[in-house]
């Protein structure tokens, strides 16, 4: 789009192009906090009474190299960035100590079978349809922190899609006896 605009602008100076970029930046919707990322399709898995944790999922497109390092939400005192992976037939879940890096122009999909934002020590259940406020904290290349707020509607349990899709590069079902 920038290229098309530049060709259309013809011989206008780089300065003017820069001003257009700044205008776009200012006019960017709220979800694109400071233009570093775009977050789409956020959702949280609803919980039942007594369930202390759940996952939030979304797509994050980075407009510059960023790292998702933390999050906070009024519904959970503890928020962590987790990765789930299958090692052979075993499921492992880990907090990402250094956050989730996303390269410029790339979209990280936080979805079942991969990454999620874990909401921990929930004081009360998250009801289906409830809009869960969630603030995600990113760092940019210079280490500066950026906060991006989203509202993630809660989807019912049992609607995670019938097929348990494995992300690329993970183990196929018939590999057993993986060394540990």
């Amino acid at each position: 789009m920038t290229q098309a605009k530049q060709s259309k602008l013809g011989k206008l100076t780089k300065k003017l192009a820069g001003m257009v970029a700044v205008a776009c930046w200012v006019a960017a919707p709220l979800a694109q906090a400071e233009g570093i990322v775009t977050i789409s399709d956020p959702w949280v898995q609803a919980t039942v009474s007594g369930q202390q944790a759940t996952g939030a999922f979304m797509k994050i497109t980075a407009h510059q190299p960023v790292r998702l390092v933390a999050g906070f939400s009024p519904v959970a005192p503890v928020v962590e960035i987790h990765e789930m992976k299958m090692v052979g037939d075993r499921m492992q879940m880990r907090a990402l100590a250094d956050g989730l890096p996303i390269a410029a122009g790339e979209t990280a999909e936080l979805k079942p079978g991969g990454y999620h934002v874990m909401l921990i020590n929930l004081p009360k259940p998250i009801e289906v349809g409830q809009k869960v406020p969630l603030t995600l904290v990113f760092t940019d290349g210079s280490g500066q922190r950026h906060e991006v707020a989203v509202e993630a509607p809660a989807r019912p349990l049992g609607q995670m899609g019938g097929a348990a899709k494995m992300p690329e590069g993970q183990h196929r079902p018939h590999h057993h006896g993986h060394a540990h």
Partner: protein
Amino acid sequence: MGKEMSRRRLLIGCGWVMFAALGGCSPQAPRFHAQDVTGADYGRGFSLPDTEGRIRTLADFRGEVLGLFFGFIQCPDVCPTALSRAVAVKEQLGAQGARFRIAFVTVDPERDTPSVVRSYLNAFDPSFVGLIPPDQETLAQVAKEYRVFYRKVPTGSSYTMDHTATTFVYDPQGRLRLAVPHALGANEFAADVALLLQGA
């Protein structure tokens, strides 16, 4: 007489050739998508209290295809995915779906109380059975019987459980038949269950 003998030999020989061509000692071995573990020397059964405190064993599920899954409620990913898949399998089986059931064994009995497990399973299918090992020793025994791995892993302020994500499937006669990997889709799983319900 000699002619008769050789004819008989020929027939027996033909029989053997046919037998071999059909696949040796199990000429009608059904083709499953999941791993066929028929005759396995593990997963011979369990005796665990359900969410209402009743002791449940394989005998309670005769006439049904039972899928036994080990998991924990604070699990945001594998467990709800596996349970959602089971719901999809049941739907795909149509009327036969009433003869397919999941028993969910918690590997986190510390946090997964009977009431939490019951309300969690109800969110998927009220017919699913929750099994709660009353203590760590019982959990260790049942996990050993199923060769299931589980481990408590601290994560910052809390802990998570690593665990085997395989669903162990019994036929209507209560025999362990299939080990269903986490990655197997609902369509394939449903096809396998349908075969077992047809007596495969």
